[in-house]
């Protein structure tokens, strides 16, 4: 049995106890690296569930494959782990079968933008009532630091020792073109705005996409002379521009920057709602016969 970390000193804040009702381990711990943004993201999601007293059965987490696969250790409610890239497809099945649930998909940038791009684009188009929180750390962390579709050109990674030759792309632009109804991007330096976005997304009727940029000091940082968590954090913060300030800025100025804010918030009718209406319509038609 692996040895557990030493017992914390008193007091235990009640937020720490939120994910552990019913779990096997009696103390809060996670297996992320020091300085990893995922620990903070797990904490923020726990806060939302505890402060708003949400019913955990209505919001199942569907977790993909990546460093965040261990996030269910610190998440409230229940979590289902799927194969690489298929979180949105499984969540589509769950949502259509039981429209009262709102699955929260947690996918990484490799999971969502490499192997799962097809499901991502189709879910945006279909407007199915799923919340997708994409954890964007510009690298494939779990497998040892390989390049991801979002790694900036010129940065080094374990499969790009001489600098990455390919250009990155912007998942928010892809979501907007595919027709997603609520699109937002925040970073770990904007925790309060992120929580507000998630609260909005949980009640949103339609597909909501939140891109959460976070720091990976162990692989992205160390390969690019940013070994301390503070360095990667400041790099992200330095490259962040709020959406309101980008008016009038040219494309070259915006290249390589993280534009944060809520990009679109225009509701459309949700797919499972339309399907239930169709069923009701057919039933009433057959009754009238």
């Amino acid at each position, binding site marked *: 049995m692996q040895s557990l970390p030493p017992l914390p000193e008193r007091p235990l804040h009640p937020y720490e106890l939120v994910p552990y009702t019913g779990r096997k381990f009696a103390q809060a711990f996670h297996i992320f690296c020091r300085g990893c943004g995922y620990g903070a993201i797990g904490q923020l999601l726990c806060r939302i569930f505890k402060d708003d007293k949400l019913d955990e059965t209505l919001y199942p987490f*569907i977790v993909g494959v990546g460093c965040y696969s261990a996030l269910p250790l610190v998440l409230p409610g229940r979590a289902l782990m799927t194969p690489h890239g*298929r979180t949105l497809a499984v969540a*589509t099945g769950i*949502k259509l*079968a039981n429209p009262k649930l709102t699955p929260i998909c947690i996918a990484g940038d490799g999971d969502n933008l490499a192997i799962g791009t097809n499901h991502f684009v189709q879910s945006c188009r279909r407007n199915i009532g799923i919340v997708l929180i994409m954890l964007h750390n510009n690298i494939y962390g779990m497998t040892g630091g390989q390049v991801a579709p979002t790694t900036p050109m010129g940065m080094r990674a374990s499969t790009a020792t001489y600098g990455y030759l390919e250009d990155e792309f912007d998942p928010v632009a892809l979501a907007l073109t595919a027709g997603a109804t609520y699109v937002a991007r925040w970073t770990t330096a904007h925790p309060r705005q992120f929580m507000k976005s998630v609260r909005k997304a949980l009640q949103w009727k339609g597909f909501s996409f939140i891109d959460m940029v976070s720091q990976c000091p162990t692989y992205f940082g160390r390969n690019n002379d940013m070994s301390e968590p503070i360095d990667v954090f400041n790099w992200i913060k330095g490259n962040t521009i709020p959406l309101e300030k980008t008016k009038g800025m040219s494309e070259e100025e915006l290249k390589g920057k993280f534009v944060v804010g809520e990009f679109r918030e225009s509701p459309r009718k949700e797919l499972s709602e339309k399907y239930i209406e169709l069923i009701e319509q*057919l039933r009433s038609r057959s009754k009238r016969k």
Partner: protein
Amino acid sequence: MADYIYDYDMPSKPYVWMGNEALVEGALAAGCRFFAGYPITPQNEVPERMSERLPKLGGRFIQMEDEMASISAIVGASFAGLKAMTSTSGPGFSLMQEVMSWASSIEVPMVVADVQRTGPGAGIVNLPHHSDIIQAHYGGNGEYPVIAYAPSSCQELFDYTIDAFNDAELYRLPVVIFSDSLLGHIHEKVVVPPLEALKQRVIPRKLVTYEEDGKTPLPRNKYYTFTSFDRKTNTYKITIPPNIATDYFPEWLPAVTHSPQSIASEYQESAELEVYTLNNKLGDKVVKVQEYFMEDADVAIVCYGLPFRSALRAVKLAREEGIKAGVFRLVTVWPFARKAIRELSQKVKKLLVPEINMGQILIWVEAAVEDGTTVEGIPAISRLHEPKELLDKLKEVVH
């Protein structure tokens, strides 16, 4: 169990249906209320008819963006409480293998229909070829069991689909139905039994499990998410599948190797336990065979699927000419009827195995028989064997 609402709506009488339509109606009669599919010839009639029939019955239909999304969606739907099904053909079935392996490991009840067509590659879409028999069992990574039915007529497509859904509920694994482009497109008479008889036959999806007395609901801490081996009774206890909206669902259902209580593990002992549990949980009652004219047979034709019809005709013609021939039919191709074939080979020393492929079950039959038995395969690529061809072969083997 018999007081659930059964809402199948086809009146009981004979119909004239295409094979693909009989497959759809069988699934709906068995309680399937979720279908996710992708178009591929020769099974396009299946999603088309499902999209028309399912909303009327309160079910859900969705056409997904590829086969991997289709089979992932039915895993999700099965966890949300609906009986779910997908259908595809050879090239799509190859794409689904990763998720078949995952679904077997997390013990999800679901049905996958494979309407096979000629391969390899894109092949010819409208000619039959049973090329996916071995792939259904060994296609995905890891070692997992699968139950596979091989019907040979439209009525059997209706009946065996109901059996497939029942097996999926009882044993909690993906069940494959083998059809092919020929069987999927012929029109035949299908008789739908009365609704009361169907209701008694179908095993419904259960939400709550009970303790041994059958009355008090089982508390959460006594419920095992996956199959476990009970040392006291030496049997495998297969529990009801967990529903994601109820309390039975574990806090973390991992896709990696796990214990019966859904705790992920990295130890060799738990990998051994999981692989053995998965592969041994099926037992003996799953294998189904049928025997015709076998009481005093000298030569037997071992077959499955469409060649069964040619074989039965050939054996009837042979009996008229005095040749003592019989038909040993495999209703379920997987799990393979190893014990039954071995017992057969102790009485009958000459076996013929006609298949619409190069001989995939032939190898298994050869491995299962006792010494001294001659086994001969009769391959036919992309065509159905003719009864005269099998009759000539019977005569050749006997003399």
